[in-house]
């Protein structure tokens, strides 16, 4: 098998894999499985990035997503009422609109490839991709890179404050109670009905 053919075969495997697993995310009852399907989808996209010559980006995407999806799986188990999917679940709203929006988004982006005449300029020096990225990161785009770093740092500080129990006004969950699911139990101003 020639190298080009191998790349083509791998691309279609990854492409179909990423779409199928991406679809399965919303079609499984178990939350942990959903997180793992999403991870599989990301890993397949990471594989496509590597095939495209963006080795560094592809591998970093896979590296990042492993930790992220593990956290997601655990958050799922923590917060969902039925994490193992023992009872079949169908937790959706505005389903028709969502399907329509999804189809429209797909058609819009997919048609771009056929309608727009993109220049045919493949990467001339694919073997230099990683080096070029490094020089770009610490050269011309230094400011962007630094901004991203500062944004991540402030996010870290922000989320710790958000997630922690003790806030400026004392314990965050004091007096909290589960809101009712039926809308008529809540008046229009959004205040909970007094029992």
């Amino acid at each position, binding site marked *: 098998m020639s190298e080009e053919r191998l790349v083509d075969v791998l691309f279609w495997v990854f492409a179909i894999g990423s779409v199928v697993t991406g679809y399965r995310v919303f079609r499984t009852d178990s939350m942990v499985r959903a997180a793992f399907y999403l991870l599989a989808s990301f890993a397949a996209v990471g594989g496509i990035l590597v095939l495209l010559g963006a080795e560094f980006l592809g591998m970093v995407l896979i590296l990042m997503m492993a930790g992220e999806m593990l956290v997601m799986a655990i958050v799922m*188990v*923590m*917060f969902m*009422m*039925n*994490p193992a999917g*023992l*009872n*079949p*679940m169908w*937790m959706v709203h505005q389903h028709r609109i969502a399907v329509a929006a999804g189809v429209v988004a797909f058609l819009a982006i997919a048609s771009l490839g056929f309608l727009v005449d993109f220049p045919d300029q493949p990467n001339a020096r694919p073997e230099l991709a990683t080096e070029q990225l490094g020089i770009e990161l610490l050269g011309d785009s230094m400011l962007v890179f630094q901004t991203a770093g500062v944004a991540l740092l402030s996010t870290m500080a922000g989320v710790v404050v958000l997630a922690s*129990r003790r806030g400026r006004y004392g*314990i*965050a*969950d004091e007096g909290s109670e589960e809101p009712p699911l039926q809308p008529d139990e809540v008046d229009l101003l959004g205040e909970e009905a007094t029992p």
Partner: protein
Amino acid sequence: MRQFLARIAAGAPVPVFAIAGAGAREQVQDLRLNPGVRLVDSPREANVLLVAGAMPESLAEPLQRIHDAMSHPRCTVVAASPEGRDLHAWLPDATAVALHEPIAGGLVDVHRGILRGDRPSEPALLPDVEPAPWRGVGPFGQGGTGMTGGTPYGRPMADLLDDRDGLRLDILPLTVGPFFPRFPSGLILQATLAGDVVVESAIEANPFTDLDFEMVTPSPTLGPFLRALSAPVPIAELELARARSHLRWLADALVSQGLHALGVRVLALAARVRPGDGEEVRKLERLLRGTQVFRWSLGGVGPIAAERLIAIAAGPVARASGIAEDARADDPAYRELGFTPVTQRAGDAAARWRQRLAEAEQALDLAGRAGPRQTEVRGQVEGPRGLLLAEGAPTGRLYELVPELLAGLEWGDAIATIVSLDLDLEEAALAAQLTAGVPVA
């Protein structure tokens, strides 16, 4: 191919899930010394189930459940004195071996036989039943209703409870025991876990209290102490038994810290020590300090305040919390030897480990200097796990403290705490029966 593999496999150490009943704790523990046998933590890994000693009736069903959890090809070996006939009724396919001979040879033979196919793998003993009826109930016949209702596949859905950070999250109710390898035989703990934290726990009644101890030979490390209740016993013998008991406990405790090989070394030492070998224990303590076990694993874990231990007479556990109570201090023979109780101050698991090491060392020194001196008969004796009296045993009282000690601990710390208490349910039950005037051999 399979035959060929089975022939090679016959040379491997036999994976045994061993259950020690009354009077067999030492024999089962000594299996660790035999390279032909490997004691495993999970019945799934085992091919051979060993049940040794006497078992109360209430443990029959758990025994059968362990049996059914083992992988094929599987077999059972029962090592019991003649009075253990019940065991054969509960485990009909079991092979019997004599309890008071080395068991390992029998285990290897039975295992080889089952690998060769000389006898079939044992079938399940219990019927395969659902924990709760569910078939045909609910919209998909899965037993559930809605998203979180019912008992899908026979399992209740997880409950919610506030965790220590104030988030209301899923909890996991879990029954551990009666044959959890890190627990003393028969201990059944019902824990409610939130993640890694034991939120609350309860202990079930000691199953060994149903056993009639008149029929059971007490274990060799306990025997001298029971005799000392009614007759003078040489101090050298008593103190040697105490040191051995502490070292045997240490061997198991090391396994719970993941130090299997070191546990084997300590077990061999327990069999080898002679009166006056205090230096051996000092060397051992240096080795243990090198493993960082006191700092990394036990320091600050499961502290017990001294006031919780007053009037429990919990022996080393009480002395580790700073209570200098020891029945030996009142014995004139011990006073002649210049005995004063050793104590620790911290009261945590590390202190209890150190306390037992120090006591083993002191016991060996005392035994070395005791000469022909004998104990005075006073109806009470300081056992390795605390005061043995005509009524009530130390483990019986410590046992009740467990749920309160575990609340809020992480699972690993909870295990370390339970291990550090050196509970012995068999001894507690036996001591409770001493009131009836059981004659002890």
